[in-house]
């Protein structure tokens, strides 16, 4: 199968316009004849549900939480990018496009990223109209700030809670459509499989997490907006319920998984402090605007930070990257912190942390100004660590944060499975091998508000649909499979808990498929994962029954998928014999220890096709063609 990205013809700036002109439209009266399923209510899912319902489609929306408002987009802190150029500092659609492509280490599709930059301004308009309380200047105009990896101020923000505010905006739009009767909302539901009939995605099978009931839902198209798979590492900044199940089971039904090894390790997280730890907390990247990252110059220096004189501190990011300083992209910042800790210069009890120091900023701008910008973040840090960052530098360490990989989609955001669309973090499309700060919110909302309302019309108008209801054989088959898996999980009755397996899987991946990777480690990880998976199915202990509110069972299903998916990540990492963005293979680095891409051999998207249980997946390649940017070695010196 040749992967066709369906990139429209024409010059880059006009592709989206031409596409919309050429795409078939669904007559308003016919829209109500189409049912659309949306799984997930983060920025992508909520905005898509609301927008499609406004157009007149019948939408059924599902979320795993007790309310759609709790999806993990809510935790995004820093901001959302747009090419408004309000500060007059030289921004443009093309520059946002270029920065995103370059930030992604030239592993994203030009046409998609350009469209993202083009629609970015409309997102801000939409969000302001929804009543999102963005930060304002004294005159009442919108304020901007600069954000990791960008040399200009294009980030809109609502204190340190931008994701929360944007999500609540999309959620309120969704609630409006629920009230209007156009969206049927199903909270506390987990999608356990996609139903494919006649080669088209025609529905899903869900588990009602309260009653345990297995439910069938039919539709003309299915949208997966189920976020990323960072929790495969067990410890990540993702919420506890984030998982790969929806996308992974779609993969097993024929959707290709693209670039799964592209994971983003965020540089500014609160360090791990114990084996019982359940998750990691991100400190917004915006902190790097004013905070200075340093370690002691001498390895093994265990003095408290206040006793280390200026001359014995190494502000390593400022030293190595004079023009970007503390604002280098995430992957660069993370790798450098790890490198310092590997050299024994790490601080704190575990030696796995670096300082993020605000002393200079407080002296320069005053405590009140710092408090206004970062008050809630400082408070959060204080709560978790018991230390006051106004008095002593924060300790930070990288943690898994975002996954650039995801289900492969074409320009329409449709996967290789007809009728299955994938939006937001769940797809692979816009961030290449590394995502820039404040771009995830932009992408999630672009997909939901600006892209899918057009592209889904083209699919619906251009496809033929047989009558497939929930009584169709495909539903019965899929449901049986789902039930079998649940029974299998419950019947093992082994001796190790689900979390126990999950932690072990996480460690394997963190050690061998984390911030820096090598072939031997990856090979080892593959074997370890296979062994762990085998043990899981012999020795996992899932208490309770299937017809009950059973959180252990929920987790077990997700970890079962992580155990398979983890191997796919490793396979992908092994196949990509280069370093780029979040994928750093130690064999491919420059003399200055920077990632060395191999554009001759790996300037492509790796898309994996499920070949059956226990079989190696089939590899497909989508070559990336760059006609509008020049492939350069990223340099932030």
């Amino acid at each position: 199968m040749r992967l066709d990205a369906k990139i429209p013809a024409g010059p880059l700036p006009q592709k989206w316009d031409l596409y919309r002109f050429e795409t078939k439209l669904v007559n308003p009266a016919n829209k109500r004849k189409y049912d659309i399923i949306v799984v997930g209510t983060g920025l992508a899912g909520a905005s898509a549900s609301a927008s499609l319902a406004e157009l007149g489609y019948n939408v059924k929306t599902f979320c795993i939480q007790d309310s759609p408002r709790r999806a993990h987009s809510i935790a995004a802190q820093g901001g959302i990018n747009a090419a408004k150029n309000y500060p007059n500092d030289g921004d443009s659609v093309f520059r946002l496009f270029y920065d995103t492509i370059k930030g992604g280490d030239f592993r994203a599709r030009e046409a998609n990223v350009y469209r993202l930059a083009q629609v970015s301004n409309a997102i801000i308009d939409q969000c302001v109209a929804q009543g999102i309380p963005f930060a304002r200047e004294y005159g009442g105009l919108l304020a901007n700030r600069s954000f990791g990896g960008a040399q200009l101020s294009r980030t809109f923000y609502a204190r340190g809670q931008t994701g929360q505010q944007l999500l609540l905006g999309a959620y309120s739009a969704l609630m409006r459509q629920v009230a209007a009767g156009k969206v049927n909302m199903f909270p506390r539901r987990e999608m356990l499989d996609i139903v494919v009939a006649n080669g088209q995605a025609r529905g899903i099978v869900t588990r009602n997490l309260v009653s345990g009931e297995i439910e069938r839902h039919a539709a003309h198209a299915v949208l997966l907006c189920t976020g990323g798979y960072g929790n495969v590492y067990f410890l990540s900044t993702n919420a506890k319920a984030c998982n790969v199940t929806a996308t992974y089971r779609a993969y097993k039904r024929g959707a290709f998984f693209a670039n799964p090894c592209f994971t983003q390790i965020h540089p500014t997280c609160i360090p791990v402090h114990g084996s019982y730890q359940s998750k990691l907390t991100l400190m917004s990247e915006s902190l790097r605007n004013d905070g200075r990252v340093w370690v002691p110059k001498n390895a093994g220096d265990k003095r408290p930070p206040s006793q280390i004189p200026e001359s014995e501190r190494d502000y390593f990011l400022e030293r190595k990257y004079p023009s970007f300083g503390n604002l280098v992209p995430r992957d660069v910042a993370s790798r450098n912190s790890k490198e310092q800790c590997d050299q024994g210069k790490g601080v704190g009890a575990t030696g796995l942390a670096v300082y993020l120091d605000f002393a200079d900023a407080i002296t320069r701008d005053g405590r009140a100004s710092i408090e206004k910008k970062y008050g809630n973040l400082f408070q959060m840090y204080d709560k978790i660590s018991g230390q006051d960052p106004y008095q002593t530098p924060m300790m930070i360490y990288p943690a898994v944060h975002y996954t650039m990989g995801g289900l492969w989609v074409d320009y329409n955001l449709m996967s290789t499975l007809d009728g299955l669309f994938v939006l937001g973090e769940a797809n692979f499309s816009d961030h290449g091998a590394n995502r820039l700060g404040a771009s995830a919110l932009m992408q999630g909302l672009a997909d939901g508000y600006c892209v899918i309302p057009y592209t889904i019309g083209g699919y619906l108008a251009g496809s033929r649909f047989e009558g497939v209801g929930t009584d169709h054989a495909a539903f019965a088959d899929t449901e049986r499979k789902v039930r079998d898996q649940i029974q299998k999980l419950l019947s093992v009755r082994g001796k190790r808990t689900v979390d126990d397996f999950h932690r072990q899987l996480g460690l394997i991946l963190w050690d061998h498929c984390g911030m820096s990777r090598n072939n031997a480690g990856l090979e080892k990880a593959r074997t370890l994962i296979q062994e762990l998976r085998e043990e899981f199915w012999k020795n996992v202990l899932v208490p309770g029954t299937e017809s009950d509110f059973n959180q252990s069972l929920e987790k077990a299903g997700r970890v079962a998928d992580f155990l398979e998916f983890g191997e796919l990540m490793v396979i992908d990492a092994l196949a990509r014999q280069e370093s780029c963005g979040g994928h750093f293979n130690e064999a491919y680095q420059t003399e200055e220890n920077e990632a060395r891409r191999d554009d001759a051999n790996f300037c492509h998207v790796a898309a994996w096709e499920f070949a059956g249980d226990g079989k190696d997946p089939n590899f497909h390649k989508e070559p990336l063609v760059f006609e509008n940017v020049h492939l350069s070695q990223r340099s932030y010196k």
Partner: protein
Amino acid sequence: MSTSISLTLKIWRQSNPADKGRFKNYTVKDISTDMSFLEMLDVVNEQLTLAGEEPVAFDHDCREGICGSCGTMVNGRAHGQLKGTTLCQLHMRHFKDGDTIVIEPFRARAFPVIKDLVVDRSAFDRIIQAGGFISVNTGSAPEANTLLVPPHNAEKAMDAAACIGCGGCVAACPNASAMLFVSAKVSQFALLPQGRPEAARRALGMVRSMDTCGFGNCSNHRECEKSCPKEIAIVNIARLNREYVKASFASPES
């Protein structure tokens, strides 16, 4: 610095909404004071699972105080004793060795218990459906900077918008009233020019929906404000009251 403590937990166990429910005592040892409260519950659950008992069901997700999923009564306080803190942000360093901790679900007629510490807060979604939005279809928004918002108002709107919908206010209120929640959303929009066209409808609709859901009335005890993990203030309730008066007596809405 991290130390280990032992605790007696008195946890509410209720297998389903129909079950009467009861407290059960658990003893836990070697709890690191660096753990979060939920991590402590994780430890309990791992032990229960291995001992062949059903783990304690509790809602949680982001574990960084923003999603609003978690929340139980801890020693009679919503989200525990620490000011401006969600349960997931409460750390065990605030407890002492040998403490007994009473863990009970949020209780309100409008928040029926689903299982153990998990309650059904869908009433909040229904309240939002009754007007907690600005009616703007995707695509129809004007240029963002055509609308000037005094930064002071934007800040106040943000103070209110910080609500995470956890239900702690309802749990803490002696009357199980949802006024703080409703007022936060009404205030956010009332303070912004975008929200004014629908202000009257919103205030009336959301208050009525709150009543229909079975929440109690506000007696100005201020327990909500003191318990709110996002420290949302009752000036918002006063603003809701004003909006309600304006809507009832000086607008065409009824």
